[in-house]
């Protein structure tokens, strides 16, 4: 009893810390930028209804970007946690399964054939279509006698990624200079999404899927012991695997279709959270979601301010910051272990 109480307190503590991190990152994101609006004024503008250019900068430019960063960071981290738990493999991340590759091919083809001139929404749509095709392919190839082979999923996923990157190279070789630029922009990933509908969609989907994954928290804990053990514990293993695969695929599909490929968040954040809050999925899911959101918002703000008025691709910051931080923590832990 004592133990359970202590654990609950620890979890509440972490949730509060992470919520504070999200708020901190949000305040940072809202208050810095090349327009140089003073810190105090930002909050006056936020809560008062005055019209003007500064209000437009905060509400129409910084806020959507903040929300999208939170949604995508959360979604990718959540997908990372689930995949690492399901595959029991610390190297699996949202982009391992080839879903992002499918989305990238979809968008590249769209740009190559100039379909994006029909409407702005065709871009994320073709990305999502590519992602869905890969999901179906993965599912179809690895579903044998009503059993979803995780090993096979991983291998075919990696292969599909290779094929996709070759296809993208082919498309790049065939395209004109303007298209080239568009494809490279998209592949680099960006949270600067002009379409409010897409931002809302990403935010809604990621929160919805977070809630959905909570129906599987104990199954995920059991799966962490191994498929057979989980089966003995009474977990409907096949159904759980299938549903989790679908949930994560859709999460990845939506994220990649809306914001392109933003690396590292889905790999590094889950690892960090496991170190901090432990491996119990009851807390790990929410913690990773919040931490991923805060991390990406923070990185994106850095990306648009370090060399202002120019902007860095956000993946540069997530890669350098996340990667080096992770190696540092890993080395420190190894040192302690000795």
């Amino acid at each position, binding site marked *: 009893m004592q133990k359970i109480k202590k654990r609950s307190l620890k979890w509440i503590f972490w949730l509060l810390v992470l919520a504070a991190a999200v708020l901190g990152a949000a305040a940072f994101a809202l208050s810095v930028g090349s327009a140089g609006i003073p810190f105090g004024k930002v909050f006056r503008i936020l809560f008062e209804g005055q019209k003007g250019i500064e209000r437009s900068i905060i509400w129409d430019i910084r806020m959507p970007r903040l929300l999208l960063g939170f949604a995508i960071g959360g979604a990718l981290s959540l997908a990372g946690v689930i995949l690492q738990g399901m595959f029991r493999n610390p190297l699996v991340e949202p982009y391992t399964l080839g879903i992002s590759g499918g989305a990238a091919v979809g968008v590249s083809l769209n740009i190559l054939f100039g379909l994006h001139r029909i409407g*702005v929404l065709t871009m994320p749509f073709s990305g999502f279509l590519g992602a869905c095709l890969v999901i179906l392919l993965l599912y179809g190839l690895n579903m044998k006698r009503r059993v979803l082979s995780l090993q096979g999923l991983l291998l075919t996923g990696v292969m599909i990624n290779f094929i996709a990157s070759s296809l993208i190279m082919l498309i790049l070789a065939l395209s004109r200079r303007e298209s080239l630029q568009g494809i490279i922009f998209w592949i680099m990933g960006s949270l600067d999404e002009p379409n409010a509908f897409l931002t809302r969609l990403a935010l809604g989907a990621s929160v919805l899927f977070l809630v959905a994954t909570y129906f599987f928290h104990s199954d995920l804990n059991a799966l962490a012991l191994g498929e057979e053990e989980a089966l003995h514990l009474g977990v409907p293993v096949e159904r759980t695997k299938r549903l989790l695969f679908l949930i994560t695929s859709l999460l990845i599909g939506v994220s990649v279709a809306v914001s392109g490929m933003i690396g590292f968040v889905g790999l590094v954040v889950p690892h960090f959270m496991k170190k901090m809050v432990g491996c119990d999925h009851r807390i790990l899911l929410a913690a990773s979601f919040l931490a991923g959101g805060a991390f990406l918002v923070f990185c994106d703000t850095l990306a648009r301010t370090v060399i202002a008025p120019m902007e860095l691709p956000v993946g540069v910051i997530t890669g350098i910051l996340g990667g080096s931080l992770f190696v540092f923590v890993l080395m420190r832990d190894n040192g302690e272990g000795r």
Partner: protein
Amino acid sequence: MVLQVFCLPLKAEEGGQTPLPQKGALSQRIVSLSPVLTEELFLLGVGDSVVGRTRYCTKPAETDKIEVVGNLTEINVEKIVSLRPDLVLVIPLTDPRAKQKLRSLGIRVEEFPEAADFRGICDSFLRLAGMVHKEKAAADLIEKAKREVSRIRQETGSRQPPAVFIEVGADPLVTMVKGSYFHDLIEFSGGVNIAAEAVHQLYSREKVLAKDPDIIIIVSMGFDGEEEKRIWQGYPGLKAVRQGKIILVDSDLFCAPTPVSFVHALQGVEKILHAEN
């Protein structure tokens, strides 16, 4: 006002035909995301309505007082909005998301495709002039440029046309085909572009050897021109090598397609092509 004063010597140099900017037409606040368009706005005498530029908009020198809002591809939307422009000039290379975002915020965004040849340069210049109500100034500048072009064409028309290979990229070898202003520069100054009829800008060394041009012009844009020159000199069978006609030119001569700089470039190419004739 300060900029206007600085503009004067520039215009005097152009021949003094540009009328002074009228007060009423200067109401616009323009952000230009293309070095060419920025230069053209100054040519039109409305340089002081440019409130934002890219890092590469460095011509004329007055541009250094204008705020930088990005490089060619990555631009800072927040910075642009904070400058309160009523017109943003973009190119196909500009980040599509940024263009869309600016449009959704109710800012007029006009895209200028890269002008392919001399005619394209003039059309684009006229279109830009229409946006800042400087049609007359533009027409005058174009008229002057066209006169100079036809003068050079007439002068060089009677001479023996040298065959020219123009190299704008090494490894892979890239040239310029018909429909580009590089091609126009060569043909207008009485040369023959050996790659005129090629389908693609990628060209093979083998073909250059087969066509054996009289002159090879290397426009070094991001590659080592001297090294390329040495490579060509390794083929002593080439006419251009025997006659010492492998010529390195500064990319600045070629890389600003405004009607005025086109004429400058044309004069430069004319000198290269007919150096000894």
